[in-house]
């Protein structure tokens, strides 16, 4: 089947300009162009709106910048590192609700996270014959043609972590000390 598609693509690209452009786009894309990733394709269609990536060597891992941002915008570290033993569930819940709302906003902006499967949980679906284990995990039996969705899965549809421009000395700082000046 693949060879057939390749032949058709070859001739279509040779004679039709717009088809050639679409094929180039599909080939350039690192993401598999399937129906479960419409947002990814949409993203690929507007490359001009993204800032150019910088060739300079980063002085800090994006993972640290992500933590820094989640702390600054949502106070995630404050929440995670506070000892829980002394508090009632309601007290924890009140704080967590605010932090979770802000985390979602920040994650949404940077990764635009969406469910992977289009169907809802509990719906019956066909098991794709050749899906990678990263995309589909079968539970109960290791093979089959249909099943019920127990988890829709998640996917990021973009990755826009802020850019860090500071020095190496400060790269490991996740949140500054706050001092109220008298």
């Amino acid at each position, binding site marked *: 089947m693949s060879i057939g598609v390749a032949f058709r693509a070859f001739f279509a690209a040779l004679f039709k300009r717009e088809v050639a452009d679409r094929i180039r786009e599909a080939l350039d894309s690192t993401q598999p162009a399937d129906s479960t990733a419409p947002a990814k394709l949409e993203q690929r269609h507007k490359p*001009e709106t*993204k800032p*150019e990536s910088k060739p300079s060597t980063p002085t800090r891992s994006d993972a640290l910048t992500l933590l820094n941002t989640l702390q600054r915008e949502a106070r995630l570290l404050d*929440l995670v590192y*506070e000892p829980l033993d002394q508090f009632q569930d309601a*007290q924890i819940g009140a*704080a967590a609700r605010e932090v979770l709302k802000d985390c979602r906003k920040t994650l949404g902006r940077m990764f635009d996270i969406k469910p992977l499967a289009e169907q809802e949980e509990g719906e019956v679906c066909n098991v794709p014959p050749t899906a990678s284990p990263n995309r589909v995990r079968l539970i109960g039996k290791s093979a089959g043609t249909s099943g019920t969705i127990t988890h829709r899965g998640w996917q990021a549809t973009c990755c*826009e972590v802020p850019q860090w*421009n500071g*020095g190496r000395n400060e790269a490991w700082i996740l949140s500054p000390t706050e001092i109220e000046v008298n």
Partner: protein
Amino acid sequence: MRKYSIGIDLGTTNCVVAFTELGVDRPALQLLRVEQITGPNQTEALHSLASFLYVPTPAENSEGIFAMPDMPAYPTVAGTYARKISADHPERTILAAKSWLCNAAVDRHASILPWQSPDEVNKFSPVTASKFLLRQLVDAWTIQFPEHSLKEQLVTLTVPASFDMAARELTREAALAAGLPSDFILLEEPQAAVYHWLDKAGDSWRNAAKEHDCLLVCDVGGGTTDLTLVRVEQEQGELTLRRIAVGNHLLVGGDNMDLALAHFVAKKFAEQGTRLNPWQSISLWHSCRRAKESLLAIDGAETETISVLGRGSKLIGGTVSVEVNREEVQQLLLDGFFPICEADARPSRGPNSGFHELGLPFEPDSGITRHVASFLAENSANDYRQLHLLLNGGVFKGPAIQRRLNDAISHILGKPTQKLGDHEDLDNAVARGAAYYGWAKHRGGVRIRGGTARSYYVGIETAGLAIPGMPRPLQAVCVVPFGMEEGSELNVPSREIGLVVGRPAKFRFFAAAHRQQDAVGTTLREWDEDELVETAPLELTLPTEDGIDESVVPVKFQSRVSELGVFELWCKSTTGQQEWKLEFNVRDAVEASSP
């Protein structure tokens, strides 16, 4: 090569840039990502630029923590980070620069912002602050489209419909200094909202609105409210749109609602024995802003918890919460800002409380619907078949507010109104509409006709006998009638005015929102103070060279409004071919307006 139509919404609290290619049959509008500081040594490209400017300390500047690798150095930090720390450092933050642009009570070229900040803080003028914001938008475009300089594109910048000629001229000045092309277009924000609707509706707009219908555009932003009335007319069998009236610039908006809600919730906290410190109060304001949307949902839980997080690392331990009743909140916000009122209700003009220290003329009456009632009455909005309501601004994300405004206006008019559009993307509609407008102008799509939103008058002292100690009586001559169309010029039929060569000739200048009956040349001998509002004076000094023989040159006025909406008043010599342009003198505005 001109490839794009770019729409820029220079908002009071947020700036957004939208664009589309000009050569396409259907515009595909996109938002520009604007590189900005989101923290020390940290930048991010976001879809909007918060209209906040933080003035860094010399130490911060020398450490370079606010340098952006791809962008030039700026004297201030604009955007998200500036907004975030504005509450902690009010004396170093410029906010609502745009509202200062239309505040005739201050010299808008003077370095006065951040308002009332200590001497060691660098200060900037409202014009310069606006330039900084625009500059960053222009630079963001440049790094993403290095081959398509913004100066070569079709750029549309939006202004509040209520901005008078002087405020528009100042906006223009800031825009040109920031690098916008000299032929950029100024478009009124409510019109941009209508264009956004036209873009969404496509050709079906002709089914939604019929001849003799009116569109009332209610644009409630973070800090301001703008009203505009657009009538659907028929011209040679084609439906056209005409903007027939524009309301005053009202300094009341979503931020006032957040603040009102925060006060209400703070009282609830006090009732349960929790006193909030200043830091917690700011945090509460933030929580209220977020909670507002769900509290204003039509059907939701009966009560909602509002929490203020603890400071420092004692986040959970220090968190205090209070239950608020949804109905109570809706009552507070809806009755406070959108009360059901009668057609003859008028906003109260009482003294303002609380806000004056901020230096901006905030509305004494926060009842937006009373302003609407007054606006509709002044513009005899009953002469139409059907009134459609077009809502714009983030405030309307709360469905209860949409519904209430609809109900209130139906009540004022005594007949039901219809809401247009589904109000998606309320935050970006103005920028998108502006970009669409550029495309429609280029391709020949539907355009809203309107002309000037006000009539304008030049004050001329009468020649009568001088009475010691009394100023000579003043007459106001109409030089721009209401609705003067773009791309037209008018000779003002008046007596000749003698300009003395080499000496500045200064003319007081007035605007009127509701004197649609005055034709060009109409001379007013007396008027109500409310009716004619003085704006920045116009000035001209005739050069002594230039081949002028006489010492006094008799002239008459000619007004011109360019295709781009730029107003110019010229003095034409009645004895020769020469003509001179009058310039706004914004610097002297303060003296002229103070008693």
